[in-house]
């Protein structure tokens, strides 16, 4: 029962000793042995206080006793020096808060297991490398069924793809995305609906029109009512029976999936999918690896199967490899690196904050040397003194930790509101138990880290000697400040590299003018002839153009996104893969977008359905297929079943595959010669385009109320979304770097200010002996700047070695970019100089008389 010590009050012991002394005196008196029985009794007993102390220590856990005492002492210290305590607490709170906030994001996005059964065994299966394949590694149904039947590594495999549909609502129809999945999709993932049920293998077999809704659609269409089960849902012209609702966290396979329907329920199943040849890769595959089989083994087997299939069906020209990518990697893919970069940066910031606090505590330690010497003289051991310093810091950092948690909560909300929308599961980031535990761990870590040296130094306090700052304390402080600068440089260069990338990205010539441009996607949907489609869009363009404030309007089949065609055949050559991107345009497209026509002509009224099929190509296409020749008048076609197209014009390149992507060869065809029911209408306004949106929307609705419109946005905004992730990373790392800059300035300022204070007398004597103020000032400046420079040099070496790791996050900037490195170093030197200025000035103004009198 060692943990439960019986406690007996000190008074009780005192009373017992009193009674003992009385009894002893009585006895001595009785036997007449002593002339002073009371005194003799006391002498025989010995040191009463020592017994009381020993008894006290025996009864208590002295460790906790000391802890409590140190705790009270720490509170007194805080009250005594509120300014210093506030600085320490704020610095640490900032560090802890920022680190916890980023951790909450990292935890939600990267560390939390996916909400499926045994998510580690789930893997996506791609044909070829998904990053470089045109079809994002999709697979044909025929190949998939061979994969499924021939492999031994997977417990089960399923396929899915996305299909857009128009949902009939009370207002104008809305365009949404459904996922077409087989029944084993549910069992493979191991997920349950929160309401109703999912469909069965029988229903899949019969191709029944049943729908499982997303939580969001359920809320939106059925107001979250249970009456949704059994209700009808009209997708396009088909009526589905609602049978279940998924929980809000379930958003697989696409983050905007609103409905899951049996793969067989869609009309495409009979008209297209089952007839598709082996080469038609439109499906995504997901598998569950068997227990005990590694991803590597599954990968090896799948490669073998893909190789065999490619050899067996050479006419399909399939890739001979298959990629097995764990779902967790696939889900977070490109955000992994940037989130870890953010986490590393913010952790560095925390280290800088700790270093700063350690420096401040060392200063305070040297001020408190008299106190420590006194304590040692009274018998405090080294460990006790060190323990006291650690406890004091722990109290400060605990307050900072609580404050940091509050900051983290705010930061987390901000990141969720303003962070890039496409980071998966970002919305799930919150200050939950793991984050709180992390914060607590960080709090202890900061306390230990920040009090390591101060505690060590306090233990070395000499009792007898004069209290000067020891050489070793100086060295530690120098080391801390230099280290701080090294870390600050590391952060600054990361920020510099990202900022430089971002600037380069912004400066990219898009090939068109995005300002004052508005784009709106209009979907006519099925049921119109090609001529009706063309007529609709021409009317829409004419009506919009007639609006006041509109300079010009046009339409294109996809303004900011386009996919390359499978193949192209240039007249007189063999077909080649892949082909250029193909888009249909209507109206004065090049004029509206601000794309320059380089050669030839634009389309005219004469380019109709029955005239010569024509095309306008971009410079990249001209260069790729007809290098050093004039492409005008040349002919090409996409496949043997499509007509030959004659090139009539050549335009400048336009970056449509994302700002940071490569420009692809591009062919524009007149809408009147093709067929497309979904187009982006683009409008160039003479004033703010966002303000035009409502009147444009009204104009479009006036033509036909049942036409679905969606995604009305200014082009500037859409481009901004493309760079949102970069902007997010850059902004965060830059703000961390800024805070680091500020903290290291405080650090070096504090050190020098303290040094000058300590050496007032010495400087006074030197001034009295004739040292010029400039020389004194230069000396102090030199001392500070030397430390900063040493730190910066170490930081540069560090930055050069680690910056390569982040090279994937950079755009058109090398990881050893001299501009980023140079600017960071110069900036840091400048800040160090500015921070050293005031203390050195103070040194140069020391009045010898005043200084000497102080002694």
């Amino acid at each position, binding site marked *: 029962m060692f943990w439960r*010590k*019986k406690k*007996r009050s000190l008074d*009780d*012991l005192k*009373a*017992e*000793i009193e*009674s*003992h002394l*009385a*009894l*002893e005196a*009585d*006895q001595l008196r009785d036997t007449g042995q002593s002339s002073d029985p009371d005194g003799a009794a006391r002498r*025989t*007993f*010995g*040191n*009463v206080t*020592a*017994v009381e102390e*020993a*008894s006290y220590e*025996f*009864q208590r856990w002295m460790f906790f006793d000391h802890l409590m005492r140190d705790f009270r002492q720490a509170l007194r210290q805080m009250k005594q020096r509120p300014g210093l305590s506030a600085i320490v607490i704020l610095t640490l709170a900032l560090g802890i808060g920022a680190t916890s906030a980023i951790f909450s994001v990292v935890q939600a996005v990267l560390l939390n297991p996916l909400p499926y059964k045994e998510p580690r065994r789930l893997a996506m299966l791609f044909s070829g490398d998904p990053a470089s394949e045109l079809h994002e590694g999709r697979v044909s149904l025929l190949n998939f069924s061979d994969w499924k039947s021939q492999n031994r590594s997977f417990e089960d495999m399923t396929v899915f793809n996305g299909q857009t549909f128009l949902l009939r609502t009370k207002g104008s129809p809305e365009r949404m995305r459904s996922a077409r999945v087989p029944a084993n999709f549910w069992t493979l993932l191991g997920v349950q609906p929160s309401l109703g049920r999912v469909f069965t293998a029988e229903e899949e077999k019969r191709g029944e029109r049943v729908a499982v809704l997303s939580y969001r659609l359920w809320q939106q269409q059925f107001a979250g009512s249970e009456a949704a089960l059994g209700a009808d849902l009209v997708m396009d012209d088909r009526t589905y029976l609602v049978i279940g609702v998924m929980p809000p966290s379930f958003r697989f396979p696409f983050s905007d999936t609103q409905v899951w329907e049996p793969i067989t329920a869609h009309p495409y199943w009979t008209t297209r999918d089952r007839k598709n040849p082996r080469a038609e890769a439109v499906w995504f595959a997901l598998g569950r690896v068997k227990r005990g089989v590694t991803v590597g083994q599954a990968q090896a087997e799948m490669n073998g199967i893909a190789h065999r299939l490619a050899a067996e069906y050479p006419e399909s020209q399939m890739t001979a490899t298959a990629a097995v990518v764990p779902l967790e990697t696939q889900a977070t893919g490109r955000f992994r690196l940037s989130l870890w970069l953010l986490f590393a940066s913010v952790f560095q910031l925390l280290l800088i904050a700790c270093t700063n606090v350690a420096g401040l505590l060392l200063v305070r330690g040297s001020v408190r040397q008299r106190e420590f010497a006194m304590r040692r003289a009274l*018998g405090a*051991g080294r460990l006790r003194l060190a323990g006291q310093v650690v406890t004091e810091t722990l109290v400060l950092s605990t307050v900072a930790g609580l404050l940091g948690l509050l900051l983290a909560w705010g930061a987390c909300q901000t990141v969720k509101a303003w962070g890039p929308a496409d980071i998966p599961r970002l919305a799930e980031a919150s200050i939950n138990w793991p984050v709180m535990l992390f914060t607590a761990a960080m709090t202890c870590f900061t306390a230990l880290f920040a009090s390591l040296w101060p505690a060590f130094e306090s233990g070395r306090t000499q009792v007898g000697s004069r209290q000067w700052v020891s050489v070793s304390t100086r060295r530690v402080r120098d080391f801390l400040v230099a280290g701080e600068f090294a870390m600050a440089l590391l952060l600054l260069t990361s920020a510099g590299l990202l900022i430089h990338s971002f600037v380069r990205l912004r400066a990219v010539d898009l090939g068109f003018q995005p300002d004052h441009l508005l784009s709106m996607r209009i979907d006519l949907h099925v049921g119109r002839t090609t001529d009706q489609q063309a007529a609709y869009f021409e009317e829409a363009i004419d009506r919009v153009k007639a609006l006041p404030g509109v300079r010009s309007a046009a339409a294109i089949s996809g303004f900011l996104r386009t996919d390359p065609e499978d193949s192209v055949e240039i007249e007189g050559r063999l077909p080649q893969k892949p082909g250029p991107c193909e888009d249909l345009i209507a109206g004065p497209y090049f004029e509206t977008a601000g794309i320059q026509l380089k050669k030839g002509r634009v389309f005219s009224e004469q380019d109709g359905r029955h005239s010569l099929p024509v095309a306008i190509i971009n410079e990249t296409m001209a260069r790729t297929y007809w290098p050093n020749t004039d492409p005008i008048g040349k002919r090409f076609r996409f496949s043997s079943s499509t007509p030959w197209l004659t090139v009539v014009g050549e335009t400048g390149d336009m970056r449509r595959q994302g700002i940071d992507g490569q420009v692809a060869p591009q062919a524009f065809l007149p809408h009147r010669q093709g067929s497309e029911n979904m187009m982006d209408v683009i409008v160039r306004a003479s004033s703010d385009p966002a303000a035009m949106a409502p009147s444009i929307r009204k104009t479009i609705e006036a033509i036909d109320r049942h036409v679905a419109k969606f995604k009305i946005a200014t082009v500037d905004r859409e481009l901004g979304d493309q760079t949102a992730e970069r902007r997010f990373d850059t902004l965060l790392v830059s703000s961390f770097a800024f805070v680091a800059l500020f903290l290291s300035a405080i650090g070096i300022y504090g050190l020098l200010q303290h040094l000058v204070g300590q050496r007032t007398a010495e400087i006074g004597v030197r001034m009295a002996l004739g040292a010029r103020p400039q020389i004194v000032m230069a000396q102090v400046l030199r001392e500070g700047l030397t430390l900063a420079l040493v730190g910066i040099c170490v930081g540069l070496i560090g930055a050069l070695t680690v910056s390569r790791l982040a090279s994937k996050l950079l755009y058109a900037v090398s990881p050893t970019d001299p501009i980023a490195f140079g600017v960071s170093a110069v900036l840091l030197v400048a800040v160090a100089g500015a921070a050293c200025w005031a203390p050195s000035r103070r040194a140069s103004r020391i009045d010898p008389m005043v200084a000497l009198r102080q002694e």
Partner: protein
Amino acid sequence: MPARKENDERTNLLQGTLDLLILRTLVLGQQHGQGIARLIQQQSEDVFLVDHGSLYLALQRLETQDWISAKWGVSDNNRKARFYTLTAKGRRQLTDKTAQWWRIAGAMTRILGREESGV
């Protein structure tokens, strides 16, 4: 506090014997601290001089281990005193420790006795 360490060592040395002597003394009936000290001194024919400080620490230790119990009472000459009584657990302990002591003492005697005869 370096002094404390030495103190502890001395107590440790005495601990076993002092505890045993206290328990033995209490077999005769309840007794207060001063009485215990006096009795030990008398019975040992003044060989043992009990350090009163150590005595009270030893009493506290024994009380914590539930070998003895204590309550305040009045002494023969009408003084308030804290009286200690042997518990059942303490009685068992006394038996064990006494047996152990005899074994040790016997062994010591045999060794020391032989050495003596060898001289």
